[in-house]
């Protein structure tokens, strides 16, 4: 490590995106129900954080709250702060939020076909994205749009720019979405299950494209995914969510190689590997996590995972474990009886 790197390490770099004690709550019923509960994380410039978890764990709501595009009035930001380069977006004006959405934070969604406007050509939509944050003539914006489509490897961009979305495949629409999201040179790109709706070979193309775009632009990425292998491949850091809370976080390799929280360990064990384990013989039994995810609002005072946890003790259903680090300062787990970090 050279001197410059040492100096940089000594002072913690100001985080590009810093989320603290984020709460998102549903106000549809009589009492507000917390859907995202006390979520905190940091993202450095150029870094990639994967937020993983199963459906209903609050990962997508966390992503939407960063852009302040929660499905209000049913669901609202209930507390906490979202600081982009020091500026708190949780209290920013709607006008300022518009600027942020148009430039500094972009988002791509799971269903690329539904996310594009079906009655406008692809080109018109990208030109609009470009002109909304930079004052350039229409002709110049169109030239930039073609260049963007070329940079996301859309074949024959000069022709396809005048297509309506229905003439493009799902993979091509996702390329267009990425081109639009990058048009403003955002500092943070939020990718919510960006490849889940795509075919296997196209998924690999889109993930490779996201990595390339990140390398070229230095954009930081928040990757929301249910697929642990996608997170392992694309991210440096991971936050595992369960029932609205982060239950484990840290560098993705360290966490997945030696998970501390029983939920993380269970998730990893439940993935079928098919690595010839059943060779010539019976099909091996997969490790199951017993039971199902609890419904929001049905949580007691203890750990939300306690009812399904193989390591639970009496304390677990009475008291909620906070996310705390033990040993390695980069890692944290919300568990009274974590695994010691030895290989799973």
């Amino acid at each position, binding site marked *: 490590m050279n001197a410059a790197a040492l100096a940089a390490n000594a002072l913690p770099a100001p985080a590009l995106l810093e989320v603290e004690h984020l709460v998102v709550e549903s106000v549809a019923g009589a009492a507000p129900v917390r859907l995202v509960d006390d979520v905190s994380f940091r993202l450095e410039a150029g870094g990639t954080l994967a937020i993983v978890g199963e459906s209903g764990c609050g990962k997508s709501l966390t992503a939407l709250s960063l852009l302040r595009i929660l499905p209000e009035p049913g669901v609202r930001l209930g507390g906490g702060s979202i600081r982009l380069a020091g500026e708190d977006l949780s209290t920013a004006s709607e006008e300022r939020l518009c600027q942020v959405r148009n430039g500094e934070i972009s988002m791509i969604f799971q269903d690329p076909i539904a996310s594009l406007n079906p009655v406008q050509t692809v080109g018109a939509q990208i030109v609009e994205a470009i002109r909304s944050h930079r004052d350039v003539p229409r002709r110049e914006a169109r030239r930039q749009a073609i260049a963007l489509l070329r940079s996301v490897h859309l*074949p024959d961009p000069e022709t396809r720019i005048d297509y309506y979305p229905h003439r493009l495949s799902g993979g091509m629409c996702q390329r267009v979405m990425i081109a639009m999201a990058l048009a403003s040179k955002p500092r943070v790109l939020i990718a919510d299950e960006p490849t889940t709706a795509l075919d296997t070979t196209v998924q*690999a193309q889109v993930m490779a494209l996201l990595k390339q775009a990140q390398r070229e632009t230095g954009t930081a990425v928040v990757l929301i995914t249910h697929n642990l*292998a996608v997170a392992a491949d694309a991210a440096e850091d991971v936050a595992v969510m369960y029932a609205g809370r982060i239950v484990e976080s840290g560098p993705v390799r360290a966490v997945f190689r030696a998970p501390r929280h029983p939920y993380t360990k269970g998730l990893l064990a439940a*993935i079928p590997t098919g690595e010839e384990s059943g*060779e010539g013989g019976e*099909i091996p039994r*997969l490790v*199951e996590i017993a039971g199902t995810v609890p419904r929001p609002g049905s949580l007691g005072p203890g750990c939300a995972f306690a009812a399904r946890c193989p390591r639970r003790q009496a304390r677990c259903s009475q008291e909620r474990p906070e996310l705390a680090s033990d040993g390695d300062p980069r890692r944290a787990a919300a568990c009274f009886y974590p695994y010691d970090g030895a290989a799973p």
Partner: protein
Amino acid sequence: MRGALLSCRDVAVEFPVAGKVLRAVDGVDLDIEPATTVAVVGESGCGKSTLARAIMGLGPVSRGSITLEGKELVGLTPRQLRPLRPAVQMVFQNPFGSLNPRLTVGRIVEEPLFVQGIGDRASRRARVRELLDMVGLDAGSERQFPHQFSGGQRQRIAIARALALSPKLIVCDEPVSALDVSVQAQVLNLLVRLQRDLGIAYLFISHDLSVVRHLAHRTVVMYLGRVVARSSHRSFWSAPLHPYVLALRDATPTMAVLDDTAKPKAVLEGEVPSALDPPPGCRFSTRCPYAVDLCRTVYPELRPVSDVESVACHRVEIASDGRIRTPWGVETSVAERSGGGRTVASGAAPAVATPDSAFIAP
């Protein structure tokens, strides 16, 4: 050769689209033996779901023959098909859309018995309770409605319904794709246990390689309506003999990336061409890094590599001494690729996978 439970020979499904013919399934041969899982893998548009619908008698068959225990299914009227239906049941991808929200779970599971006129009310109720127990749902669930259950529990209800008529074959169309990982493992374990206990065969349609590698006895890979590879050999994915199998494997994210020695994988370019306008020759040739002129003009027929494996690729060379060479670095031999399949574990039938060469039409 033991008799197949279900056999498809040269099955084609065609749809007229804008003055052209879309060949969704184009000359597929397939055999499923009792108590065996045959997985059909491919990307969207490869024809895997259309094939499943044809087997269920839910779609038109333009050509070829589908036989169930020797009885021809193609060309039967719905009335003629009805007495055969109990033997083949289906589980769908979306457990939210495949259960009637206005019926109780008990009524949903009872429905197939009711339609087939089996038993009286009391005996059907008893059977429903037995079925719910089999799939791990408690007795109280029969009075509840589908919305009161999670995705995994709903898929258990769908499986109980499929089991009601004691089928010999269940066609599973992406049965765990909509489920979370932790719940997916529960449903896969259930399917494996039911196969072991009841001797049910599965036609398992999936795009998820890790799931297929886990439970298939034989794997069939389709691309643009045709079978490009078929194998029950354990090295099918680890040492692929077809470039599309290689590409699918490399495109699938796995935890192997955590291994420090993992090499970056080549990403296949392009997308699946339109089935309305398939390329001449090998349909994969437009994306195949190993394609030569022959591939772009002549379709490679599916040919046996060994007694358990067939591939449709010109670039796989089988020398007279049995050595097998490929331009993508897989080198093996006919002897190495023989046998080695997963045996069917069950009291139902001590079956070794059917010799592949035996079901290639001459």
